[in-house]
């Protein structure tokens, strides 16, 4: 925890100009990842996780994306002020990303060997053959059998798991300091997911890089990261070391998420859903975005947007009612069926 900050995001806000108006996908996100740390960003679909990651990588397509405010510092350098060429050059060498959809994220008309070798040569120069051997090494590193032969394969000739491995290899080509893993296992089967998770964990230990793991599955990050940030509707609503978060969530959304998950052990109980659905991000939300779904909500919740404030050491939550949440964390209120409907 004492390591120096590698990536600092401060008050980042990203909006999209859409047909239905301005969509505030990310609205005031602050986040720090330290050297060698494994951090997680968790949140439901559409909560702004990918947008945050892409903003860090400088890969948001503008238009429609617009970084409205905020700072992104990488090892002290302000990325948003950097000239595009130099910023681009950081990608792959300092910061790398692996993506969710491995099929779409690899160029279908180029052999995987060339795709990796091209990145290697781009950052490190050297001959084509040298780059190709490096590519083979990388494939071996990510556990692809017979890597030399695989260099000549096209993405469609590989299985989903193998493609995901290639994508990881590509991201690691130049041994970046920070790896952003944006739901790299979502599309995969559990058994393959387990393989990939193990692979990333092992590589992080070997290479000593920091990992920012993005997922909507709380289960995935439990054993994998040091700290977790929970996002909801473009904001971070809770941030804590992983154990603290699971032990005693302080934000009603986090708590609700944990309660709505079935477990593989313990008594079977009725799940407690979070009623309602995500808010429409094209409308300005001047209050706690979760309030309409919150069982603890009080009228004040609708007056202003709660700030992310420390509730305990290293544990922050953006909620006025953290104590009530903490108290009710283990509670299983019998939710009436009518209250669950998101259509009422």
């Amino acid at each position, binding site marked *: 925890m004492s390591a120096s900050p590698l990536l600092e995001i401060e008050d980042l806000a990203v909006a999209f100009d859409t047909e239905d108006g301005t969509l505030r996908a990310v609205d005031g996100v602050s986040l720090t990842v330290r050297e060698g740390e494994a951090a997680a960003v968790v949140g439901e679909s559409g909560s702004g996780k990918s947008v945050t990651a892409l903003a860090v990588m400088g890969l948001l397509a503008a238009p429609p994306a617009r970084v409205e405010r905020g700072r992104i510092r990488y090892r002290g350098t302000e990325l948003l002020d950097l000239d595009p060429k130099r910023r681009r050059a950081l990608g792959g060498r300092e910061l790398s990303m692996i993506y969710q959809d491995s099929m779409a994220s690899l160029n279908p008309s180029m052999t995987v060997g060339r795709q990796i070798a091209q990145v290697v040569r781009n950052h490190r120069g050297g001959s084509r053959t040298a780059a190709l051997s490096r590519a083979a090494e990388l494939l071996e590193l990510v556990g692809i059998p017979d890597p030399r032969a695989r260099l000549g394969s096209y993405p469609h000739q590989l299985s989903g798991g193998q493609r995901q491995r290639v994508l990881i290899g590509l991201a690691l080509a130049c041994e970046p300091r920070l790896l952003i893993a944006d739901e790299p296992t*979502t599309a995969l089967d559990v058994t393959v997911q387990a393989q990939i998770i193990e692979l990333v964990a092992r590589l992080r230990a070997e290479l000593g890089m920091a990992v920012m793991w993005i997922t*909507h599955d709380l289960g995935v990050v439990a054993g994998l990261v040091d700290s977790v940030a929970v996002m909801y509707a473009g904001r971070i609503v809770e941030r804590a070391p992983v154990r603290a978060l699971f032990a005693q969530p302080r934000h009603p959304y986090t708590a609700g998420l944990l309660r709505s998950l079935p477990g593989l052990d313990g008594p079977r109980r009725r799940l407690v859903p979070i009623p309602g659905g995500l*808010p429409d991000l094209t409308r300005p939300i001047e209050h706690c975005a979760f309030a309409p779904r919150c069982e603890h909500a009080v009228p004040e919740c609708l007056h202003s947007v709660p700030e992310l404030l420390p509730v305990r050491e290293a544990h922050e939550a953006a909620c006025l009612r953290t104590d009530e949440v903490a108290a009710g964390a283990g509670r299983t209120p019998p939710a009436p069926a009518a209250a669950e409907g998101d259509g009422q």
Partner: protein
Amino acid sequence: MSDAAPPTGRPAAPPTAAEPEPAARAGGGAWRRFLRHRPAAVSLAVLGAVILAVVIGPAVIGYGPEEVSMAGKDQPPSPAHPMGTDDLGRDLLVRILVGGRLTLSVAFAAVGCSLVVGVLVGAVAGYFGGPVDNVLMRVVDVFYSLPALFVVILLVTLVGPGFGPIIAAVAMFSWMNTARLVRASYLSLKEKEFVEAARGIGAGHLRIAVRHILPGALGPIIVTATLGVATAILTESALSFLGLGFQPPEATWGGLLYEAQRPVIALGHWWRGFFPGAMLFIVVLAVNYVGDGLSDAFEPRRRKK
């Protein structure tokens, strides 16, 4: 555990009172998107105006389209003849408007015919797949391989020019695009779960093909139809240019352009070529823009802005 559906949800009633509309309230979404495509919206208005002018214009203007007046021949545009007169002293404006009727009705009729054939063939091929599809698609391939204008010319020389033959000839070689697109739509849509769902509740083939799949295939159909109109207009004008189109005194825009070759090049009567050319150009341009707007409207994925 999977990638989630698009976030279009809305919060439940409490505690906020007002119920927000869902993000994509898009009953008229396609229409709205179409109107947002500026050139397309303008083009639609232009097309409407042209059609209106062509339909009622000739009745309003004081000259008949075949009213010869040797005294007033070859006049440049003037208040009396806004588009000038031709070498028989006929008012060019009236001739253009009357010609427009022919041009546009040939185009619309041809596209209508080709749509019927195309949708039918495409739907049958795509819906049933297998050998039926195979055979129909080979037929499409055959028609694709025959350069259309060649066959059209051949047919017109065989049968002689005229409304029917020209429409038939143009239609006969323009249905394949529709057929392919409709087939593609059907092929992909019939694999969709909603088709299985419809079967699951006991719906028959016809119902599935018409009620469930056809509306989804409509977008591309309308777009190709639009572009087909443009092609048909140009094909007809090319036929006229080759002297195989309608015969004087009937004239389409292409025919008027054909007549204008000599006056423009040799005699400098620019208005003879300019106005029919401009009408042809504007209408085809507008049709293309409308097609563009429609494809934007129907394929929100590829929206521009």
